[in-house]
């Protein structure tokens, strides 16, 4: 492991029960960069983030964060490490029984001894950064999808983490919110001097803002490179993904028996 990489996957495999999800993934996320993990729905992107956060353990290999193997940490070590990570969940996962302000203040109150007046200033700064200082007294149920995502973003960076993880930050957003979130991801990363991992299937939006891309399919990394290399790539998988074609290496059909046989056109069953 080189010190330049904040996160490293070292030949990681993972299965849910008997079902293999990841099959020998090796990848590196250099410090200070914004790296995208792309792949179709269900290919194991969220699983990779859970491995980094130590919520699940690899069955083979190891995930290292800042030089420490995550699955070898004890409960205290894991919690220490998580304090330096921020994660934006797929649907925000805001605490529904707390106001926007209290959501962002949550970790400060749990993990620091800061006075309420200092917390107030910090929370307002974070909310200002995502443009929602005026929404501090709203409850999560009163927010639009894009606003909720921005609040979750402010909450994820509340303690100025060294690593920020985004799970599908663009899913279900209108085009304007899409651009806003994309720019925020880039700006927050650079302003905090953090490292970011963006998990997404939204190619165009993410190619605009990231430094490097890994393509995951069927549990392995099938392609990687800078956004420009990806756009120019003639690998069939990358081409299909970047250009949104329906059929290609990723089949349109879920695996099934032959169509004719299913419709019982073979004569035998008829």
């Amino acid at each position, binding site marked *: 492991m080189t010190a330049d990489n904040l996160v490293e996957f070292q030949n990681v495999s993972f299965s849910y029960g008997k079902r293999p999800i990841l099959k020998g993934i090796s990848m590196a996320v250099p410090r200070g960069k914004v790296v995208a993990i792309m792949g179709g729905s269900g290919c194991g992107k969220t699983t990779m983030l859970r491995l980094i956060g130590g919520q699940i353990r690899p069955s083979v290999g190891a995930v290292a964060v800042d030089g420490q193997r995550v699955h070898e940490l004890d409960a205290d070590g894991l919690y220490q490490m*998580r304090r330096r990570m921020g*994660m934006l969940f797929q649907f925000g*996962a805001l605490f*529904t029984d707390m106001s926007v302000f209290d959501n962002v203040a*949550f970790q400060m109150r749990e993990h620091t001894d800061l006075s309420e007046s200092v917390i107030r200033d910090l929370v307002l700064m974070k909310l200002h950064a995502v443009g929602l200082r005026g929404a501090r007294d709203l409850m999560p149920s009163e927010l639009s999808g894009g606003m909720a995502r921005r609040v979750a973003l402010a909450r994820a960076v509340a303690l100025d983490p060294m690593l920020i993880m985004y799970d599908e930050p663009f899913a279900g957003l209108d085009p304007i919110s899409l651009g806003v979130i994309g720019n925020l991801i880039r700006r927050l990363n650079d302003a905090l001097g953090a490292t970011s991992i963006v998990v997404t299937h939204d190619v165009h939006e993410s190619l605009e803002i990231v430094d490097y891309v890994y393509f995951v399919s069927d549990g392995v990394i099938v392609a990687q490179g800078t956004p420009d290399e990806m756009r120019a790539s003639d690998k069939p998988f990358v081409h299909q993904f970047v250009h949104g074609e329906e059929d290609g290496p990723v089949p349109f059909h879920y695996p099934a028996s032959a169509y004719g046989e299913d419709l019982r056109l073979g004569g035998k069953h008829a």
Partner: protein
Amino acid sequence: MPSRFVKGVRRIGHRTINSLLRLGVASRFFVLVLLHSGSSFRRPHLIIKELFSTGVLSLIIILVSGLFVGMVLGMQGYDTLQRYGSEEALGVMVALSLVRELGPVVAALLFASRAGSAITAEIGLMKATEQLSAMEMMAVNPIARVVAPRFWAGVLSMPLLAAMFSAMGVFGGYLVGVKLIGVDEGSFWSQMQSAVDFQQDIVNGIIKSFVFGVAVTAIALFEGYDAPPTAEGVSGATTRTVVTSSLAILALDFVLTAFMFRGEG
């Protein structure tokens, strides 16, 4: 092809093992809640907030039900007692029924269906919307931060609610017996005072409602925490909370009564 008999036995075996497994998981959860309760006591405002929501949620239904149960007791009790010419004992009958049995049991049943189901639904939804996962990723233990305060709030509010139920019930019995039917007011209260024993009746009633509070709240929290993170999962868990905790209340009541009042009289 196994016979139907073999299949039946196999199914019973499966069910038994699954229930035992779940009971084991539930016990482990309960121990974890107790182990992680320290932080709730260091930050009592977390418990107070939950005390407010669970207690206040159930307050109206408890008070109204207590009043009606007491009024019915007043009528039925008078009807029976006057046959033996001892209608002044009405106060004793109403008070003892309430303090020993109906207060703790009915209040706990109402608490299970009102607050218990709400707790399960809330925790289940927090899980389904990844709020608990998010908390873990923020290095905050959801059992310590979300579950334990709700547990202690439920345990503390149950005896208070049962006491209010009994008080309202006695008032209801007084309204019907004394004000409506015309039992002598003086003997209604004085017989009640002399016949209700603090240790034997009041303390035992409080112990009962404390035990019911532990059972209902623990079941409600476990069902929510264990619910499959889907809409059907949460609604099924909510139903199970009400059914399981009602059965637990009635079974525990039998056991506790057998221990507390055996050999008396």
